[in-house]
């Protein structure tokens, strides 16, 4: 069944990968479980809530779409819970609801992610449905056509949605010729051309054991889980057949592109070079972004754009490390007649951060925030399961949660100044959609 994830996809990947956390050692001991058949999962045992949460990820999301058919990964993920094994779509969905099992699949740029939530007493049914969805997906004609119609309706809506227009233009301009230039959920031209064989072929290549990461939280022990892993994932091919992903080099930094749309509020997207997740500079960069436009009511962008001038309700920035590049991204939505002012204010703040870096006080406060807020990422099973997968994807080590606060603590003022310059000094590519101010910016085309 297709769900309304589209707009959240990029952000969701970000939130989990950056919900990097500190003091969870108190309550979260991670066990590495390897099944008799050699399938690995990371487990946090949690007996006090009667449910099991399992997240799993297959590397190679929309970046494995056929070049002329963006949307295949997205459509495959949206159809995986529409029947498997001897259960057609209706029977599959009936079994989910009858056992109160929550199962969903979604594709983002670099992965296909699945999430299961099941009452402990119904775990057998839950795991069995995941097995059928992954190892014997049916892709029957009715659900395939239904999902296609749903995707087309959403795509039509997006053609006049300023946020989507801006985002699509940004990616198209930033990575011409690269899979990242294509929208994850496809286009009005590509989606009608996707056929069942595309979905089968995609699933056959991407759903495999060697590109799979699994995180489990709940009342289950290592031995039981080992048996489950073999039952659920053992039927997948050993090796994925992935196309190599070329590095994505960000283009058009420094440019501003406008699209005219008759809406009262202008939507602005911006993005520049970021820092890879495994780069030693990632943590300093994360702190710099936190101070500039990250997650609190005290960031520089929040203060300058929203609080002092009332130019916008929402203004933010974030780091987006991807498999083929690393980005610094952000956005705002602002009054049409003040859009140019908002953009120049944001660019000025970025420039100032690049040149002078944060102050000692800002650094101290950010470090203290990031240490203190760590535990907030560990208060639900589903959050922990998602992070177990992200830890493995990012290859940060099973002891990362214990080390993370130390990594934050070790960052110096010299580090953040150097790193701020490193990733912010080149500026950003800006896309804007709204009533055009008469500022001579280049037309980007719809």
């Amino acid at each position, binding site marked *: *069944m297709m769900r309304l994830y589209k707009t*959240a996809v*990029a952000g*969701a990947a*970000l*939130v*989990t990968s950056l919900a990097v956390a500190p*003091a969870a050692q108190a*309550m979260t001991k991670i066990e590495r479980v390897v099944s008799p058949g050699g399938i690995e999962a990371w487990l946090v045992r*949690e007996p*006090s*809530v*009667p*449910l099991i949460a399992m997240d799993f990820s297959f590397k190679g999301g929309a970046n494995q779409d056929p070049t002329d058919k963006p949307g295949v990964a997205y459509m495959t993920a949206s159809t995986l819970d529409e029947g498997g094994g001897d259960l057609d779509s*209706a029977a599959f*969905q*009936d079994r989910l*609801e*009858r056992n*109160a099992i929550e199962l969903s699949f979604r594709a983002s740029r670099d992965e296909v992610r699945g999430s299961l*939530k099941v*009452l402990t007493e119904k775990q057998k049914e839950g795991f069995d449905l995941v097995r059928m969805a992954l190892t014997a997906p049916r892709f029957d004609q009715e659900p395939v056509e*239904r999902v296609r*119609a*749903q995707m*087309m*309706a*959403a795509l*039509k*809506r997006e*053609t*006049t949605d300023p946020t989507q227009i801006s985002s699509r233009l940004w990616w198209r301009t930033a990575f011409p010729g690269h899979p990242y230039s294509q929208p994850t959920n496809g286009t009005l031209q590509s989606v009608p051309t996707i056929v069942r064989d595309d979905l089968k072929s995609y699933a056959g290549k991407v759903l495999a054991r060697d590109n799979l990461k699994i995180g489990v939280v709940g009342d289950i022990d290592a031995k039981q889980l080992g048996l489950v892993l073999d039952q659920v994932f053992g039927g997948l091919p050993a090796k994925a057949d992935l196309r190599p992903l070329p590095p994505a080099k960000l283009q058009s930094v420094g440019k501003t592109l406008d699209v005219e749309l008759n*809406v*009262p*509020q202008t939507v602005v997207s911006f993005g520049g070079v970021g820092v890879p997740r495994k780069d030693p500079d990632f943590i300093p960069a994360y702190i710099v972004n936190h101070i500039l436009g990250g*997650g*609190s*009511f*005290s960031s520089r962008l929040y203060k300058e754009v929203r*609080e002092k*001038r*009332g130019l916008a*309700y*929402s203004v*933010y920035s974030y780091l987006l490390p991807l498999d083929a590049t690393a980005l610094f991204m952000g956005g705002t*939505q*602002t*009054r049409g007649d003040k859009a140019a002012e908002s953009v120049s204010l944001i660019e000025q703040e970025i420039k100032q951060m690049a040149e002078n870096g944060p102050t000692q006080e800002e650094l101290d*406060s950010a470090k*203290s*925030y*990031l*240490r*203190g807020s*760590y*535990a*907030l990422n*560990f*208060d*639900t099973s589903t959050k922990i399961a998602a992070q177990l997968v992200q830890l493995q994807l990012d290859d940060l080590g099973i002891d990362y949660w214990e080390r993370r606060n130390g990594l934050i603590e070790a960052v110096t003022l010299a580090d953040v100044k150097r790193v701020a310059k490193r990733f912010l000094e080149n500026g950003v590519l800006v896309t804007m959609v709204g009533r055009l101010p008469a500022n001579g910016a280049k037309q980007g085309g719809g």
Partner: protein
Amino acid sequence: MIEITRRLLPAALVASTALFTLLPITDAARAAGPDISHFKLDNGMEVVVIPDRRTPVVTHMVWYKVGAADEVPGKSGLAHFLEHLMFKGTAKNPAGQFSKTLATIGGQENAFTSSDYTGYFQRVTKDRLKMVMEFEADRMTGLQLTDDAVKPELNVVLEEQNSRVANNPAAKLGEDVAAALYVNHPYGRPVIGWRHEIEKLDRKDAIDFYNKWYTPNNAVLVVAGDVDADEVKKLANETYGKVAPRAEIGPRIRPQEPEPRSVRTVMFADPRVAQPSLQRSYLVPSAHTAKPGESEALEVLSQILGSGSNSRLYSKLVMEKPLATSVSAYYLGTALDDTRFAISGTPRADVSLKQLEDGIDSVIAELADKGVTNDELERAKVKLVADVVYAQDSQATMARWYGAALTTGLTVEDLKTWPDRVQKVTADQVRDAAKAWLDKRRSVTGYLVKDLPKPEERRS
């Protein structure tokens, strides 16, 4: 109930600010689940404590029993505007001090407004609980506003209105459907307000509203997380307990709806509508206004009729026919006064909104005539009760359920017995609910279109 929050959260969190229905604690869950305490401070402030000892963090919320439906006519948007201004400082803690402190210790914060309540929350490690209670108690009656702080914030709220409504044709239609449904009750006003009225709100409006409604005897404290009731009681007495009540709060009586009688249709055309859609709302009883069993039946009805792939609407109109790409129903049970049962749908490319509407009408008519099967009934109950168990995995979700319930006329006991009451719903009750409440004369149907029909088409 539509809620709006002070700050647009990063994408992944946005969904949680949308809509939520009443789905409290199950009996099955209660055995293994949290031991919830409920008591009152001497100054009349209610307190709910929801222990969850897994992680050393707490969710701390203060809910005021006031929302957009309590504004006087002409001042729409005031409850929400005040919510924004609550971050502008007190004599003791000048503007930005509270947020700055949270930004240093690693606390998350936000606030939200609905028609019936206004809430403020922080999520912090448990050793910071007393500190946030001190801050929150201080701004309960100590807010100080200057025009310098108020004016830019009014622009922020106008931009919020642009983001949520003015830029979004479906949201505009949603406002007009609600306005048409409620001919007398203030639920017909958008929580964010009508733009021409928001523009005129000022410091004095906000302070007067604040002085009238923000008092401990009109507030509910909810603390969920790694705490026990005795600890919270002690801290609450040391902080909120010292705030003197400053206003008498009478019963919350709003103008009620007359018995609806006309089938209403509204149509909103916008050149930006590339994909037409339909939304309908029926006027129905809320968990607070319903007779015993009625609200539970409506909850089960919404599950069977329009929640998920197995629902009647989805299986008949999206899978079997197929007229729609999506269609769903939900019941907004958590409301002080009569509320809405809503249906929304998007037609397939070659299907008109009228055809989709006729399809919806026939699915409802069949259900109201022939009722539901025992199989459907059982499946719906399993799902509804399991949702309550799943909620226990999240202290923030639990805190929101209790806060929303206690500010919309329900009790802790109502929440605790809810799963049992859902279990008792019969197939006949579900059929009767459909017959009684999903009567088209109780409804407004909204069409979202690109162009208005031409006159000759309208005649046919």
